[in-house]
């Protein structure tokens, strides 16, 4: 069987990639995608832990389902906000959306 540490490493790497993307990308949609990557990294962790922990329950897998559901809701609201923003700004580049500073 594949050892737990492989899954946790995969989760950590995915989370790192997601975080890097969220911090460096300038396109609002790309940032949202990077955040999804972070959430899915957490899901990998939850499911692997739930499977490998001694006397484990299904808590981790249930949590992953909830994370997926919440992420879907967040994406729906997020895309609606980005769409509304695009109508007014004609761009989704976060560097150009800076009416307010300090």
């Amino acid at each position, binding site marked *: 069987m594949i050892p737990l540490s492989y899954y946790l490493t995969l989760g950590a790497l995915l989370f790192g990639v997601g975080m890097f993307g*969220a911090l460096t990308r300038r396109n609002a949609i790309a940032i949202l995608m990077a955040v999804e990557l972070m959430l899915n990294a*957490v899901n990998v*962790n939850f499911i692997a832990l739930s499977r490998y922990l001694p006397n484990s329950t299904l808590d981790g897998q249930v949590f992953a389902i909830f994370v997926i559901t919440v992420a879907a809701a967040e994406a729906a*609201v*997020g895309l609606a*906000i980005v769409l509304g*923003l695009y*109508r007014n700004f004609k761009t989704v580049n976060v560097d150009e959306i800076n009416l307010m500073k*300090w």
Partner: protein
Amino acid sequence: MTAAFNPGVDTLHALPEVFLCTMAIIVLILSFAVPDRRGWMEGLSVAAVVGTGALLLWQLGEPVSAFSGMYLVDNFALFFKAVFLISTLFVILMSINYLQLERVPVGEFYAVLLFSTLGMMFIASGGNLLSLYVGLETMSISIYVLAGFLKRDRKSNEAALKYLLMGAFTSGVILYGIALLYGLTGTLDIKQTAATLVQMNLSNPALLLAMVMLTAGFGFKIAAVPFHMYVPDVYEGAMTTVTAFLAVGSEAAGVAALLRVFLGAIPQIQGDWAVLFWILSVLTMTVGNVLAMAQRNMKRMLAYSSIAHIGYVLIGFVVGTEQGISAMLLYVLIYEFMTAGAFAMVIYLRTETVKGDLIEDFAGLARVRPVAAAAMVIFLMSLTGIPPTAGFVGKFYLFGAAINSGYIWLAVVAAVNTAISLFYYMRVAMVMYMLESPGPVSVSSSRPLYAALIFAVLGTLIMGIYPGPFLDLAQASLMGLMK
């Protein structure tokens, strides 16, 4: 294991939430059938909040754990739910006239507002990291919508986007922290997490990493420096009533989540997180107050002021004793009234033609509307912490708790910060009383807004003059949270 699942009885324990959710859905459905200006939505929303409050009173008594420990009814939960419902009531009263000025769909606004309150109530009752997380997201996603409610206003769009991106990123960080904690303890139940940690090696790096991630995540939610970057922009861009809701409701919910998780699940490593929060508290107070001095926009100034106040609230958290935490709860309650009052004044100045969110817009108010100006002075005094207002009492107990536990330097920094804050709060009072308005001063008169103002003034003064019962209330609310 925790108590067995009993659908009938358990649902009864969650009756306030069931009622609020039902009412929110009814408001949402009716908003498509009834024209906006009939006042139905407002009436139904107020009824929803008042009804939920009445159901909370019915829950007073022995602590209950329902849905296999997912949902707790204890004094702590009831205290925070009362705080949330009061803030929602404030926001509804302020919105009734304001929404017509901004020309936004009324029914949807109230429905989303009630859903957000529902999420907050689940946070306060969260006995399990899963239910706490779902509550947190229900609240946040609703607030993303509220922040962007002015679809044609570019600032509102920008506020929504910034809040959404920051909030989504934060949830990822919090979730990773929860996953680590789950991996270490094998449970998501908050009480069991603490019980498992007792037998563990507490210097485990994974545990510390989980703590740091949770600190960063909740730091974002309560807007502690250095995680505050989005706050001023969101406060300025969103509708003023939404800003008020963010300041009083969502911050209180963040504090509730923070207390539930840190005091409930990882109290064993309090020594470690107290150091982290000591730094956060000092940074938050100082940066908030210093940057507030430079603001010309009232909403932005109040944003930095709310950051500074979170810094004060964190003092109680650093201290971590029963005295400290109860002072913290009392401060959250007091802060709610004085800040809601200050935002109600900003809304008071919003008319068809004037946006009213600049500090200059307050010029000459004392001559035209002396009573309203006097109310504003009371809120400003309270925000500064001058007796006989509630803000003084709140700070007195917080600083007292810090000194009693030997955090002298923290109290000194907080006192210096209070002196700094005097400058920018009193500048608003100065503008109202000393400056002449260039044009005629116009205000929006609306009975519900007056009601909100009177309620806020009464709260601020009563808690300032006679704080005893409220302190007892805060102390009693710790039952179920601390051992």
